[in-house]
């Protein structure tokens, strides 16, 4: 079977993010860029499915500037077979991302798409659901377990919902979005990194796809979050409980 895994280049989650003084974006100097952590989990899941089902192929897809090659090479070094990069210097909103991916799906015809549940930069948690709708496919978001039927025609997915775990079933092709506990992504091995250099990485200028990517959600400006003042240090548990009772009046 063919599995498509999507990759977004994002600032390392440990990076401290600052808003530019004019509110037009974030300060990108000295930022370390990585694969979106939830996408790493998605790639890992695609690789595990491939390892279980002989003859499978894992294709990576990303959208962004030429530098995104770095993250795609990392994904290829983890074990993906080839990669597609849709080239654009613009930041797309989730619906535009879904439209571009839908176009890629038209030609690639994967049986399964695995995506991160959300990208840790814009935190929308939307592209997977939107892509599923555009394709008319079933979706299983926030997955913590994915099981494919032996005939590879359907899947059963455990989802992390508010009150516990929900299980849904759906025929393939389908979309799964990965939550934190789906798996622990592997590191790229040295031989993997060597091999990745020779794997196919196809670039497609976004204009060639003929997709409407005008943003429906436009970011007007960015602001830093409101600051919360630090309070006081207390010396003992006794004093803490006393203050919570008499001053804060919360216990």
């Amino acid at each position, binding site marked *: 079977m063919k599995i498509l895994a999507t990759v977004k280049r994002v600032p390392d989650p440990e990076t*401290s993010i600052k808003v530019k003084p004019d509110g037009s974006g974030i300060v990108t100097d000295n930022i370390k860029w990585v694969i979106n952590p939830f996408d790493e989990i998605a790639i890992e899941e695609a690789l595990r499915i491939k390892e279980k089902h002989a003859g499978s192929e894992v294709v990576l897809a990303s959208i962004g500037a030429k530098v995104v090659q770095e993250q795609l090479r990392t994904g290829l070094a983890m074990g993906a077979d080839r990669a597609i990069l849709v080239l654009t210097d613009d930041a797309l909103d989730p*619906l535009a991302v879904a439209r571009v991916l839908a176009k890629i799906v038209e030609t690639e015809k994967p049986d399964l798409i695995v995506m991160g549940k959300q990208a840790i930069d814009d935190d929308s948690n939307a592209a997977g659901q939107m892509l599923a709708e555009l394709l008319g496919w079933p979706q299983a978001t926030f997955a913590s377990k994915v099981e494919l039927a032996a005939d590879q025609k359907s899947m059963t997915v455990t989802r992390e919902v508010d009150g516990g775990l929900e299980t849904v079933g759906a025929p393939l092709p389908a979309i799964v979005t990965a939550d934190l506990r789906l798996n622990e992504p592997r590191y790229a091995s040295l031989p993997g990194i060597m091999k990745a250099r020779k794997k196919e990485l196809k670039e497609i200028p976004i204009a060639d796809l003929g997709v409407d990517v005008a943003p429906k959600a*436009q970011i007007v400006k960015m*602001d*830093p979050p409101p600051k919360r003042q630090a309070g006081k240090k207390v010396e003992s548990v006794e004093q803490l409980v006393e203050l919570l009772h008499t001053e*804060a009046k919360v216990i």
Partner: protein
Amino acid sequence: MGDVLVFAEHLHGKFPKTTLVAFAAGKDAAAKFGGACHAVVVGSGVDALASEAATYGMKTVFQVDSPRLEHYLADAYTAALAEVVKAKGIETVIATATATGKDLLPRLAARLGAGFAADITEIHADGTVQRPMYAGNVFATVKLVGSPRVISVRATAFDAAAKDGAGSVEKVPVSLDDGKLTMKFVGLEEVTSDRPVLTEARIVVSGGRGLKNGENFKTVLEPLVDELGAAMGASRAAVDAGFVPNDLQVGQTGKVVAPELYIAVGLSGAIQHLAGMKDSKVIVAINKDAEAPIFQVADYGLVADLFKAVPEMKDAVHKLKS
């Protein structure tokens, strides 16, 4: 014009607090956009819920009732909601960013070709909304182009709506094309607990990697949690390390909470965790590292070994109550 439609999520025949937040956000949006606020109740046999929704000041409650909609499924619910939006000329669809809201609304937006903003914290009269990005390091003002538009609301951004009016209920038939609806509900394994729900609790006690293992959550943290009648939460690091299940995770990629009292134990306060709790009224931090970032947002900070301080605190609270 400018009518708003609130998706009224329900569980076990009740509206959780998160749905009352959606009603409040819907009324706020309708007032600012100059339209009426309606709600939609989707399910199987939901007469009572539809009538109840109307008491929260919803002008009309559209009841979409079908055995096919007994369990939430993204494809069927999207189809049902899209029909209501189109038939009733809705301009803005609102739900709270619960697991269901997050699953459903983007799909609905794609179906409607609508602009979508996730997890918003403010609605402005000029039609823009404010939403956190980069784990709460950035608040973006977002303009949604065209109509309709779809918005999910952060569960802590609005107070629960009050029962301040009685609207009418209108049953809306929808045509569900079974050929296109392929998802199946298999089961729900609910975490049953005597403790309050994390997102509704008055007091939340969260543990981090400082607890060292899952056993210590049980033996050290839980006695304090229960003494306070609190809900238990955890940092992503503690979930990552396998100490506790993911449904306890508080943070940008977990649950967002704003209780009256939030007690952070043995957690450093990574930005993505702070994003999920810094709207709490009173924050307490207990950590042996005086430099931990959690102290920068804490109203009361105690630099101490949690293995000593937490049992002491449990005893002190017990003494206070007796």
